[in-house]
């Protein structure tokens, strides 16, 4: 596969965008799938001092020595910095130690609430999804969290059917009123663009579209009249160096094909 910046998959672009949300030295609660790769990519490029915390009870500050597909793969335990209980790493989350976390979603709404539990159709259960896992905890307790998902009209809805992982609820003040100690979503990275949240209204705002994607296409595939930033830009393409690393991390393209 050529490592030319014009030849990358959408997943590779999303992982690269996710990786760039991680600052060097941050403590990152790492989730499955694209976020797992995003963390490893950040670690091997611009954020070598980032620390990874995994809900299984793992803390690492170096990438696994071999490509991994799940967090529990044995190379991810090899020379870990800490192997411990889920309660211990959840404690790091609850006591405010985690800077940023990543969550995938099936359904998200204009205030960044996330549903990975129940899809309801005309008042009846249509689809049972796997559930929270650690997602509710990450959305409740990290200093900020980033949502990664496919951009489709039935996924970006005005109001989610079920709040598995709280975003900004119904707007400003909601998290405080609910009793959440901190946090909230800081970005939503989709297959079409990047959204952030208005600091006053807490509503999602389109800030960037991926190369080749028009704003119209984003709006057509969003379930509510999405606000658009005055300073909208094009998402930066993955660099050759990032693509090279990514293909070392996912050589079979299992997550990024």
């Amino acid at each position, binding site marked *: 596969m050529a490592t030319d910046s014009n030849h990358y998959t959408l997943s590779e672009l999303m992982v690269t965008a996710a990786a760039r949300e991680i600052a060097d030295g941050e403590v990152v609660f790492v989730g*499955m799938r694209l976020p797992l790769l995003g963390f490893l990519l950040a670690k091997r490029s611009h954020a070598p001092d980032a620390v990874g915390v*995994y*809900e*299984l*009870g*793992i803390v690492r500050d170096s990438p696994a020595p071999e490509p991994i*597909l*799940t*967090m*529990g*793969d*044995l190379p991810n*335990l*090899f*020379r870990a910095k800490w*192997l*411990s*209980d*889920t*309660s211990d790493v*959840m404690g790091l*989350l*609850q006591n405010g130690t985690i800077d940023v976390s990543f969550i995938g979603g099936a359904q998200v709404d204009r205030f960044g609430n996330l549903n990975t*539990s*129940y899809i309801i159709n005309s008042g009846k*259960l*249509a*689809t*049972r*999804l*796997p*559930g*929270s*896992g*650690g*997602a*509710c*905890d990450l959305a*409740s*307790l990290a200093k900020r969290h980033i949502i990664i998902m496919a951009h489709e009209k039935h996924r970006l809805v005005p109001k989610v059917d*079920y*709040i*598995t*992982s*709280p975003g900004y*609820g119904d707007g400003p003040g*909601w*998290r405080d009123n*609910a*009793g*959440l*100690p901190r946090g909230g979503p800081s970005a939503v990275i989709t297959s079409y663009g990047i959204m952030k949240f208005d600091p006053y209204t807490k509503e999602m705002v389109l800030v960037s579209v991926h190369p080749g994607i028009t704003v119209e296409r984003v709006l057509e595939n969003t379930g509510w009249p999405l606000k658009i930033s005055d300073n909208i830009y094009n998402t930066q393409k993955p660099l050759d160096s990032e693509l090279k690393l990514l293909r070392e991390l996912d050589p079979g393209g299992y997550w990024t094909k």
Partner: protein
Amino acid sequence: MASASKLITLSEAIKRYVPDGAEIVMGTSLETLIPFAAGHEIIRQRKRNLTMVGTISDILFDQLVGAGCVEKIRAAWVGNVITGSSYNFRRAVESGDLKMEDHSNLTIAMALKAGAMGVPFMPALTGLGSDLFKTNTSLKIIMCPFTRKTLTAVSAINPDVAIIHVQRSDEHGNAHLWGNLGVISDACLASRHIIITAEEIVSPGVIESDPNRVITPGFRVNAVVHAPWGAHPSPVPGYYNRDHDAFIEYRNESKTPEAFEKWLRFWVDNVKASDDYIRLLGNERVVKLKLKNHFLSEPADYGY
């Protein structure tokens, strides 16, 4: 004084400690060390009306649901970690046959922690504002008596039995487990009975050489089972890697009830002894999954 051996067969352990209607916690280190062999024995004995407790059980709970063993699940996540949704679980919840108590990893950890500590609940800060409270009556909103702030109260879970897969155990139930620890320790302490399935049975001297690695005190363990490859296809640190192909294949093998029946006959009903399972796996697969790079820890000096 030497206590009696607790070493029995898998079939005997499940017969004795998993009655119909029991509440069972298993798959407690999330993606590693999942006691699949014990789960399959539960299926073979056609246990019914079970309540399964877990964090992320990978495909274990889906298999038990598909075999008709489960009435209720209290867990954070049920699916196939590497492929997403799991189909028996979906079918059962969507048809109304299966009751679901929706947890997060933190709330299930706290439920078992409360059970382990002998208190009725543990406080937490997670889930506030979420809909978990609508589909989980074990979660309540309370006010902190000290700070007057809002808290999530997580009701204790005390399962009838914890089933834990470990690397090695002596015949009295003193077992070494290493790797990520999930909620194993609290799951053991919270449960009325404990079944240990082990890759290897070793002498008490091996276990006593490193007491920090003992997962729960042996006097609380009821049964010890020798179950090599007993966590396949999940990984066991020090023994074998995760069999990704098995999880990916299971996606199609469970897509329809008919396909799952076929899977069940081949991988569960076909197996009368642990040797049968290893034979079904085949030598090529076994060799492929075994560790390629051993990495031993330095001994720790427990002398005086």
